[in-house]
């Protein structure tokens, strides 16, 4: 139904309406209404110019809404002076819409919802299903977000970094429902990368492609989490890996490193290893050093400690871990892993069980419990 290319036209059509003087919130509603009509009408009567059709119908919806709302004189006047369709400025409009929907005044969840609707062209119902909340709750979240940005000028330049954070959230923290949020995040990142030559946009796109490539190997047929070292690498999508590496190399060549490029470089090194044993952990540690320098993130430090454990041995890994706050998420799980590799299954089993109790999600809890059970069975036997 609402599959591309129909959805891909949404940001450009919103842009045209806003350019003609419609305010963003009303324009966005009008385009959603036009989409619903397109889904109904197009199968029997496909238009020759889909975008032109959407603009015409959305503008009519906007005019209807403005007329119905007679207290808003400004819009009434606008309607009387309806402009001719101007030249398409789709590229700029779409980019501006990304900025508006990720405006810093929005909470992350609001920015995510608004981006998926206005830039992604998803319906409120689809977004609600994707985040497991009632449709009315999601509708409110979106309309509040629109009110929050109502004072922001559409042509105001925005910050790419906030857009990237929103797309990263969509990619990394989505549920696995009917809407494939990871694929949607990739689509939106591709569309963004086509409109801007920002190195970090390319870095994020590469990161997404390289991780998405592993998706078929990440979960077992019984739904269990398969850790990187145990993944069947033949299942990795080599086409996505090739594309991710190319996108990353082009970005790195511009010599303006950022956190997403560094993360993508780590993912690329994993992708490059035909077996887990062939992994170039020394280079991975170097990239983590870059990542720590760029972000000073405790999570990056934790991952670095695990990489040190692979590159230099479990003792140096544990030493690096000991410098970090034990309350960090996954700190105990990392300690359990390094203690096992250090030949201390008793401590490892205890820590795996402890890590399982504070796991942030069910697949991780089950995975950690299984690790503890495996070691305990071995210790008994």
């Amino acid at each position, binding site marked *: 139904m609402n599959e591309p290319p129909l959805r891909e036209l949404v940001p450009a059509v919103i842009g045209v309406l806003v350019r003609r003087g419609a305010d963003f919130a009303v324009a966005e509603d009008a385009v959603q209404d036009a989409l619903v009509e397109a889904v109904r009408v197009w199968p029997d009567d496909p238009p020759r110019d889909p975008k032109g059709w959407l603009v015409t119908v959305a503008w009519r919806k906007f005019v209807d809404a403005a007329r119905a709302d007679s207290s808003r004189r400004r819009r009434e006047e606008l309607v009387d002076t309806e402009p001719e369709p101007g030249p398409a400025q789709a590229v700029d409009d779409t980019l501006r819409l990304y900025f508006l929907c990720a405006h810093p005044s929005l909470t992350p969840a609001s920015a995510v919802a608004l981006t998926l609707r206005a830039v992604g062209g998803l319906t409120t119902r689809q977004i609600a299903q994707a985040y*497991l909340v009632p449709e009315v*709750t999601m509708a*409110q979240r979106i309309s509040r977000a629109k009110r929050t940005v109502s004072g922001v000028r559409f042509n105001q330049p925005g910050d790419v970094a906030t857009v990237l954070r929103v797309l990263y959230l969509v*990619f*990394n*923290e989505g*549920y696995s429902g009917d809407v494939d949020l990871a694929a949607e995040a990739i689509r939106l990142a591709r569309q963004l990368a086509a409109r801007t030559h920002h190195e970090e946009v390319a870095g994020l796109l590469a990161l997404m492609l390289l991780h*998405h490539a592993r998706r078929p190997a990440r979960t077992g047929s019984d739904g269990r989490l398969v850790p990187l070292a145990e993944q069947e690498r033949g299942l990795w999508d080599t086409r996505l890996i090739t594309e991710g590496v190319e996108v990353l190399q082009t970005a790195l060549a511009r010599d303006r490193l950022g956190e997403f490029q560094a993360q993508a470089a780590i993912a690329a090194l994993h992708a490059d290893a035909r077996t887990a044993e062939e992994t170039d952990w020394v280079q991975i540690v170097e990239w983590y050093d870059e990542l720590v320098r760029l972000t000073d993130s405790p999570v990056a430090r934790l991952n670095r400690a695990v990489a040190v454990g692979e590159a230099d041995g479990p003792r140096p890994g544990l030493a690096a871990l000991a410098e970090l706050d034990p309350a960090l998420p996954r700190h105990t799980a990392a300690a359990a892993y390094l203690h096992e590799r250090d030949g201390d299954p008793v401590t490892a089993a205890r820590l795996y069980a402890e890590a399982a109790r504070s796991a*942030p*999600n069910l697949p991780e809890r089950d995975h950690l419990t299984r690790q503890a059970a495996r070691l305990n069975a071995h210790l008994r036997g």
Partner: protein
Amino acid sequence: MAKYLLLKHYRGAPAPVNDVPMERWTPEEITAHVQYMRDFAARLEGTGEFVDSQALSPEGAFVRYGGEGRPPVTDGPFAETKDLIAGWMVIDVETYERAIELAGELSAAPGAGGKPIHEWLEVRPFYGEPPTVTE
């Protein structure tokens, strides 16, 4: 965003400050209490944080597998069961602090004398989805 369960107990939670059983409230106090709960849910719908709200009857039974070819075994209700769930609200919020703030407000629902019940609500995080990027 993260989802939290705000769990309300018939039994099992520490005693509330305003500890008068509902059947001894005035009808107006009951109406005010019900209205407070409704308004609270409606407000959370408005902020985009509401997921679900349900109430449970105190009547119930325990059920277990009875073995191959046998019907399930039922038992209870047990008067002595220490923990009895009365209902819940599920919220989807930006932070843990926000979940605590909302639970505090929900616990302020009026009871006897029109004063807040100060009842203890249990706040439990949902498991989320595993993240894609883990290294």
